[in-house]
């Protein structure tokens, strides 16, 4: 039982990352009907920007320019990095996607892959091939709750992720901008005729998705403090799976599917030999998709893909 709870805690943390990244995929896919394959690399860029911001802030603290407790630095790092990365997202949209909006879907999908490679190799040239160690922003404290080990980092990661997801949900459901996004997701040929600019909404979508990826990147850096330029590739693919599993453009769906993916991966490794983890985990997901081709919250009308 203790073993089960320990894995549950692990899975919650692991699922948070998938959920945060899946949200970005899901939103872009929901609104523009295209897969932003560069999203995993935006996650990587976010982690590196977070690394830069955190290092800068820590340098300021050590020089005595500012005094702040470590959690304030963490919050500031997350906020600044989210803002900076959202600009990266907007640039990606402007350069890579807007010119191709009327191009065949396949071309737009390829753009994402290319931008991803550009971001990876750009980073490689900029910072070199060595890995960077994400600064320890908060001192790790381990709590032993009757045999289940929980760290303050794990709690922080899950809480921050859930807060961001809730904020996004509120934004999409309650604000005018959110309404415009939902309308665009419903039909992006008719809604612009009603006076909603598709360019603005597309930019907004990329900005929000990238900001969430940046948050995921920093939280990732806090939990797994080794960053490398290729860290986003496989992670991005898996989060993409979660986005599809959740259903097109569904915030709730992407969140739940992200957590589900984390749970499946962790629990499969718990029950079966870990060598078979991905084999079994992704077979299960394949099976789910066979029975629910539109994902959990996807609606059948989205089947008229303009591919």
């Amino acid at each position, binding site marked *: 039982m203790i*073993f089960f709870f320990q894995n549950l805690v692990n899975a919650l943390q692991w699922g948070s990352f998938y959920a945060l990244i899946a949200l970005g995929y899901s939103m872009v896919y929901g609104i523009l009907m295209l897969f932003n394959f560069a999203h995993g690399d935006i996650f990587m860029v976010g982690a590196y920007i977070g690394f830069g911001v955190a290092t800068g802030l820590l340098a300021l603290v050590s020089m005595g320019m500012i005094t702040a407790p470590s959690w304030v630095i963490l919050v500031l790092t997350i906020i600044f990095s989210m803002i900076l990365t959202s600009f990266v997202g907007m640039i990606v949209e402007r350069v890579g996607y807007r010119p191709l909006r009327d191009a065949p879907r396949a071309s737009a999908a390829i753009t994402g892959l290319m931008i991803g490679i550009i971001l990876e190799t750009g980073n490689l040239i900029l910072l070199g091939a060595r890995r960077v*160690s994400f600064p320890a922003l908060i001192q790790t404290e381990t709590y032993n709750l009757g045999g289940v080990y929980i760290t303050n980092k794990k709690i922080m990661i899950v809480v921050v992720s859930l807060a961001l997801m809730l904020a996004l949900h509120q934004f999409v459901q309650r604000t005018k901008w959110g309404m415009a996004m939902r309308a665009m997701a419903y039909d992006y040929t008719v809604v612009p005729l009603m006076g909603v600019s598709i360019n603005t909404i597309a930019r907004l979508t990329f900005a929000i998705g990238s900001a969430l990826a940046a948050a995921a990147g920093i939280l990732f850096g806090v939990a797994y403090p080794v960053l490398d330029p290729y860290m986003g590739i496989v992670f991005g693919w898996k989060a993409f799976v979660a986005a599809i599993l959740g259903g097109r453009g569904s915030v709730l769906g992407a969140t739940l599917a992200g957590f589900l993916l984390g749970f499946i991966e962790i629990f499969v490794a718990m029950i079966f030999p870990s060598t078979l983890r991905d084999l079994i985990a992704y077979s299960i997901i394949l099976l789910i998709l066979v029975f629910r081709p539109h994902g959990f919250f996807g609606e059948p009308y989205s089947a008229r893909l303009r591919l």
Partner: protein
Amino acid sequence: MRKGLYLMVLTLVVGLLFSPCTWGAPKTIKIGINAPITGDIPKVGEGTKYAAQMWLEDIKAAGGLDIGGTKYPVEIVIEDNEAKAESAVTTNMKMITEDEVLVIVGPQSSKQAVPAGEVANNYGTPMISPWSTNPDTTKDRPFVFRGCFLDPFQGPVLANFIKEEFGFTKAAVLYDVASDYPKGLAEYFKEAWEKVNGKGSVVAFESFTTKDADFSSQLSKIIRSGAEVLFTPQYYNEVALIVQQAHELGWDKPIVGSDSWGSAETVELCGKNCYGLFFSTHYAAAGAVGKTKEFIERYEKKYGYVPDDVAALTWDSLGIVQAAIQSTGGLTGNIEEDRKSVRDAMAGVKEYEGITGKMTFTEEGDPIKCAVIVRISEKGEFEFYKSVCP
């Protein structure tokens, strides 16, 4: 038409006859370095490159490589294999066929050295991998050599060390199933451990795949298995993550590693979490004497950090190559013949006193040398703990 073709062939043949490589002046000796400059383990590539550059400096200072009284200019060709098996193979191909290197030094890790060794052997080009510990690298390949001990030796060394040092009977292993080196070593360790402690004494044998960052479910299983020690033959980037996560999940028992831990970056990435842990390796920088000390001081002065085992082994491998080339007594200028004679000379090296210790060579081209158990000190330095000889 036919005439034109003959003329063309004739021109080419005449051109070849008079091309500089057949002339009398000593031809430049090219030595290929196949290293992971980018990719997963760039620090390994850096150490390789720096050691090779230092070696070249010495040769240049001496006015070239002295073979039987003639000084030959030497050039090193450093190529990046991106720490990928495929790239290591194409890199070897390129160096053999295009750059026409005499000898190849590298690739370093077994993942690249095993497939790349195949190419070198097929093309009759001598290759020496300084760091690859997997037996397959040199097995049945007369042209392939290495500068370090083998995993079948390292596995028992570690199993016996843990047994003697701690007296444990239950061990857990966590390794990357998609990489030759950790997988091979994990299996050798398991075999050796079960030989000492009986069947089933490896209570958890868990794996993951390259690029994974979360090991929590594997580690939870290991903790639950009741193991007394964790053995993880991983590279430095994964070591940092594994050790940290293990501690966060409540693991407070020893974690032991292999020579892949011996990078200057292990402590940088892992920090305090790794202090007090043990691993086996080829040499220990702290407390070195003689030639080894000289090398360390020179390297540190030049590049600003203490060289790791890869740099030291690359240095020794280049030394072996140098000794072999010199003992050929002279090169003919025909690259294929020269490669053959260098190979024979390398196979003939019976004993070599390097900075990583004295080594003798077996029929397979593998050295027999001592392993060193290193403890990561409270200052984060690699401290000599014990020497284990075969």
